[in-house]
């Protein structure tokens, strides 16, 4: 199964037409795949809170947005999640590379990984963790759930899900 294609297919099938990204090595394939899709407008942002602002605008413009980002940036988005996305009840699927988990080669990444689920739980953000490639089968349901409840929803995707790093 090509998980990059599957994720892009599910985004398109759920009407997600506006995607902003801040890259991560693990996300390179899915970002590349999104760029090949005519049904998705891809706008890279320079910081994740900026990207959430773009998504808020796209939502109010009548489109379905999504953000693709790394978990290390969760800290810079806390205020935006609380006072914009949640306060105004906006749907936002967050496809997040979960750096610092099993098969991670860079020790520093673990420092934010240990806070990631706690921060999301503190914000009452529904959170899913993709560890096996078959977990991607849940993505379609998660997107439907997100746009049903008008909340930010986190999908954490670790190195094992993406196939690891070389010999790691």
């Amino acid at each position, binding site marked *: 199964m090509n998980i990059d294609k599957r994720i892009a297919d599910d985004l398109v099938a759920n009407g997600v037409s506006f995607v902003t990204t801040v890259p991560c090595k693990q996300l390179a394939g899915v970002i590349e795949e999104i760029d090949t899709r005519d049904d998705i407008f891809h706008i890279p942002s*320079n910081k994740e809170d*900026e990207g959430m602002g*773009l*998504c808020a*605008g*796209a939502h109010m413009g009548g489109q379905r947005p999504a953000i693709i980002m790394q978990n290390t940036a969760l800290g810079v988005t806390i205020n935006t999640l609380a006072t914009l996305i949640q306060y105004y*009840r906006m749907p936002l699927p967050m496809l997040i590379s979960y750096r610092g988990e099993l098969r991670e080669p860079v020790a520093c990444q673990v420092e934010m990984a240990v806070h990631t689920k706690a921060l999301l739980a503190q914000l009452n953000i529904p959170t899913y963790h993709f560890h096996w490639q078959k977990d991607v089968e849940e993505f379609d349901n998660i997107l439907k759930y997100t746009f049903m409840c008008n909340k930010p929803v986190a999908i954490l995707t670790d190195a094992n899900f993406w196939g690891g790093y070389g010999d790691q």
Partner: protein
Amino acid sequence: MIRSEILKEIAPILRDQLVVCNIGIPSQELHAIDDQPTNFYMLGTMGLASSIGLGLALTQPKTVIAIDGDGSVLTNLGTLPTIGNNAPDNFILMIVDNGSYGSTGDQPTYTGKKTDLAGMARAAGCDNVVEVQDVDTGAALQKAISEKKPTVMVVKCDSGNAKMPVITMDPVVIKDRFMKAVAAS
């Protein structure tokens, strides 16, 4: 002129447009001067008025005016390259540059010193950047709307705030009202 005097003067122009208004006193002033369903008031999240406005302009055809401040743009400088490389013809960013953080007690920002926001916007790739004196704001805004090309306005004015009540409207009501106005033909 201070920001509230400018907003009073341009209210008849703003009334017919979609407006995303910056957090704090700017939104309070606009709300008190001329509340409209076409106004989206930010109640929190400093710095993102330009990003929300850009996302809105990219996803529907009506003209969008994001009213921002110098302090807020400085806190989200990454917005300028994103605007410079992506802004559609229906997007106007109006930065009210009074050289101070108005909502927190008029502490000076760096734009009152050596920092030049118009120069930064140009360097970020924004092709149509206009520097405007407070008294000329209405004419410059009308021109930007008529020209139908992405515009960044840097409006130089005096520091100071009008005493206006806090917005008590529920955020979901603000959004719902605004989205209906966006979708209306």
